[in-house]
């Protein structure tokens, strides 16, 4: 394999294109199977239970601590300019717009995405997926699609929990510990946070991240080499690719939503 031989360059290009094509085709099949998932919602429900309920603890605890830290750091800076009442606005805006969608998506990739990749990779290595195909059961519809839609439903809810717990964490630091007035904490927050342009855009971000993270995890598992090393490599790649795509998408979405 060398970069200057035309045949190698051609092979590499063709492989990349084929990977993109496989990914896109899987994505469209997952989206198309939404109807089938809604008809057999029990499958999606079990996956929401696995992805959502078990991620709730780590999301809530991280949100609480990020709220604490934002409260402390924000107070340090704002106090210099004599506007520590704006702490509520600072905590709420930074959580709702940026931190909650991004950090929840990163945690979700680590907590739930890896388990999806490992599960599907092992199913593939154990030839369970091929066995299903032999029985005329579509593994994409039966195994992948419920997991996909469960992830897309779960991440926005987890993000909302993250924001809410984080705001409460900021309140705990600001009001009982530092002594900011509770009324002005909330009224400054309500004055600065808009339902549609801040909370709504945060929800849109979390839905996009839900698609990106869950799809990355499923694709890596589905395309994994059916060997122990292949599954472990696919799991690592899930975390790397999902995290990078969340950060990149976040930049693009922020530029589209909050510029000007």
């Amino acid at each position, binding site marked *: 394999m060398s970069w200057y031989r035309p045949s190698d360059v051609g092979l590499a290009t063709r492989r990349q294109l084929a990977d993109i094509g496989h990914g896109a085709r899987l994505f469209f099949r997952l989206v198309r199977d939404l109807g089938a998932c809604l008809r057999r*919602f*029990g499958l999606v*429900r*079990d996956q*929401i*239970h696995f992805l*959502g*309920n078990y991620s*709730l603890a780590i999301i809530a605890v991280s949100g609480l601590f990020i709220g604490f830290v934002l409260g402390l750091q924000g107070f340090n800076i704002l106090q210099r300019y004599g506007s520590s009442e704006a702490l509520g606005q600072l905590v*709420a805006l930074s959580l*709702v717009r940026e931190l909650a969608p991004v950090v929840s998506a990163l945690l979700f990739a680590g907590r739930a995405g890896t388990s999806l990749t490992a599960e599907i990779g092992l199913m593939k290595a154990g030839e369970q997926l091929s066995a299903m195909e032999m029985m005329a059961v579509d593994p994409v519809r039966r195994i992948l699609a419920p997991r996909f839609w469960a992830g897309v439903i779960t991440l*926005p*809810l*987890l993000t*909302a*929990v993250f*924001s*809410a*717990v984080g*705001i409460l964490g900021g309140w705990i630091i600001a009001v009982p510990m530092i002594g900011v007035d509770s009324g002005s904490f*909330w009224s400054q*927050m*309500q*004055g600065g*946070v*808009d*339902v549609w342009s*801040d*909370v709504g855009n945060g*929800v849109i971000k979390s839905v996009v991240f839900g698609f990106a993270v869950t799809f990355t995890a499923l694709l890596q598992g589905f395309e994994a080499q059916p060997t122990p090393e292949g599954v472990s490599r696919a799991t690592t790649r899930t975390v790397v690719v999902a995290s990078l795509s969340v950060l990149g998408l976040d930049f693009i979405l922020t530029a589209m939503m909050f510029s000007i």
Partner: protein
Amino acid sequence: MQRSRNDVWVGLFVLIGVAALLFLALQAANLLSLNFQTRYRVSAKFDNIGGLKPRAAVKSAGVVVGRVESIAFDDKSFQALVTLGLDSRYAFPKDSNLKILTSGLLGEQYIGVEAGADEKNLVAGDTIKSTQSAVVLENLISQFLYSKAADNNNAPQGTASKK
């Protein structure tokens, strides 16, 4: 579809998520006080709006009575055309006066309404005639410099003025 034990837990999870969203909408962003008031629109032309932005507050006697809905440029009169949405529970006389003010030294700009004395009130679609532009710092400084220079010229034994 048969029920399973997961139903309860998934239901709880979804309820917690929806409750968190409601908390964000109601407590952090104050959805209730924003959306359930009807507004009436009036427009006004300003020579210069300074740094006024859409959604800036409209205040009368310091109380928020509405919001700036849109800002456009009128290329017939070369003025800024500002559309205001005023809460319909507040009525103002037709000859009310609008000023662009700044909250604090570095704060954001808002529109102040000074009530007039007319017996008729503003209704939707009216145009407010008497407006006062934003204070632009550069204009203030140049006025100050010109008046300084004029003072120097008038002074009898003034040294060579830098003109």
